[in-house]
């Protein structure tokens, strides 16, 4: 068990209930895909898990431990928009170096070795350390964002709509790369998306969220082949057949 999320609740000022008692477990090696439409609370869930938003109630434990430092090192997040998640003022070297904030004992040489390794892992050339984010395309930037997440060799990667803003072909490349990385690095993914095709490809467990609640949770094939909740059926029908019941 890597991550235990229990009874998370969050109501925003104005009365919008973004999370309404969300409980989830993520086991090592069992990628969890979270699907749901915009406004269902999936981004809030990711932010509460990462500690960016304080929940009204509930706990998030990493291997049974609430320590934030260890959490920041072990759990890393990749954001949706690669154009806003990299600070345009810093070079690739500085961006990657910042990821090592919690590893102060690492020497410059070790840091550089680590940078080269993660660039290899995301299939980016090694000689780009002095370049700036605006010199890269969307897909390349997302690779850099993933490289940054890999710097501390995390055990859990939270990908919040990490391929949704990319071209279909680039999406596919990134998804293939993520699959390969998982096999090599033994990470677990918490993949959040409204794109059911991508989620189906990458996840072993599926959670379906609507109105701040998890309405369906189970093995991928079970959820896709025999959806139990009517909302899940609507979602699958719309995503795979582009049809919706009137």
């Amino acid at each position: 068990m890597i991550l235990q999320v229990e009874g998370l609740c969050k109501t925003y000022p104005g009365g919008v209930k973004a999370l309404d008692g969300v409980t989830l477990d993520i086991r090592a090696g069992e990628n969890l895909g979270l699907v749901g439409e915009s406004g269902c609370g999936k981004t809030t869930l990711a932010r509460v898990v990462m500690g960016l938003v304080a929940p009204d109630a509930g706990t998030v434990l990493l291997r049974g431990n609430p320590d934030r430092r260890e959490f920041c090192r072990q759990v890393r997040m990749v954001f949706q928009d690669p154009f806003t998640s990299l600070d345009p003022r810093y070079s690739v070297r500085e961006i990657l170096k910042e990821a090592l904030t919690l590893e102060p004992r690492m020497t410059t040489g070790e840091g550089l070795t680590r940078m080269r390794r993660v660039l290899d892992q995301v299939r980016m050339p090694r000689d780009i350390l002095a370049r700036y984010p605006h010199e890269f395309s969307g897909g390349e930037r997302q690779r850099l964002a993933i490289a940054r997440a890999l710097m501390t060799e995390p055990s859990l990667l939270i990908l919040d709509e990490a391929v949704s803003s990319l071209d279909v072909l680039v999406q596919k490349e990134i998804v293939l790369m993520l699959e390969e990385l998982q096999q090599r690095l033994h990470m677990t993914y918490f993949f959040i998306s409204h794109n059911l095709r991508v989620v189906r490809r990458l996840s072993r467990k599926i959670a379906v969220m609507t109105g701040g609640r998890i309405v369906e949770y189970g093995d991928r094939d079970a959820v896709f082949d025999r959806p139990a909740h009517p909302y899940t059926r609507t979602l699958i029908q719309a995503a795979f057949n582009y049809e919706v019941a009137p």
Partner: protein
Amino acid sequence: MNDTRLLVKGLTVTLREQPFTPILKDVSFSVGRGTITGIVGGSGSGKTTLALALLGLVPPAMRVKSGEILFEGRDVLGMDAEELRRLRGARISMSFQEPSGAFDPVVTIGAHILAAMAAHNPSAGTLARQKMLDLLALVEVPDPRRVAACYPHELSGGLRQRAMLALALCARPALLVADEPTSSLDVTLQARVMALFRKLRRELGVSIVLIAHDLGMVRRLADETVILSQGRVVGADHAYAKALMAAEEM
């Protein structure tokens, strides 16, 4: 050929500064009456330039090198500003990917549509309001009266998208150019908007040019699909088209 509404012949568009790197290269296709034509391509494939060119809006940094765009037999690219103004909105209209840019934030949805209707048909008079509500009902806006009184920011993305369609349809155009109408929407809303396009085609006989990057969606909806890669039309057996189809499978 009488059924052809729009005919694009050998359209080549280049940057003014670099006349030898075409944005669009020898693009030809036709759109029949009441058909849906899908134009698919990745970012940078020239599909947005093509959409703008169909309305006679070639960006100032670009130049049409050769080719013509015939709408109902008349060359769009040869028209002067006044003719184009009459054409746009009245016979051809466009909807955009991000609906918020199409609306003035301090004007209600209803007032937007009424103003657009008055511009095209000043004599509508007292019937205008009823027509406006009918139009909102046509694009399947629930409770048109309430939505008409709303300001753009008060609507959800899906409702805004539909309100923009109503705006685009208020002069009953013959051709609707929809640029990425669903890519900012959730899957269920995507499916709803697609169903709406089918209905509009059926009930109004409007021809639709649908510009998107999602080949799977376009193939289900469109009668004909044009795949653009680096400014050129490519066939279904082209490597890029195959890659797109393979990506659909995920």
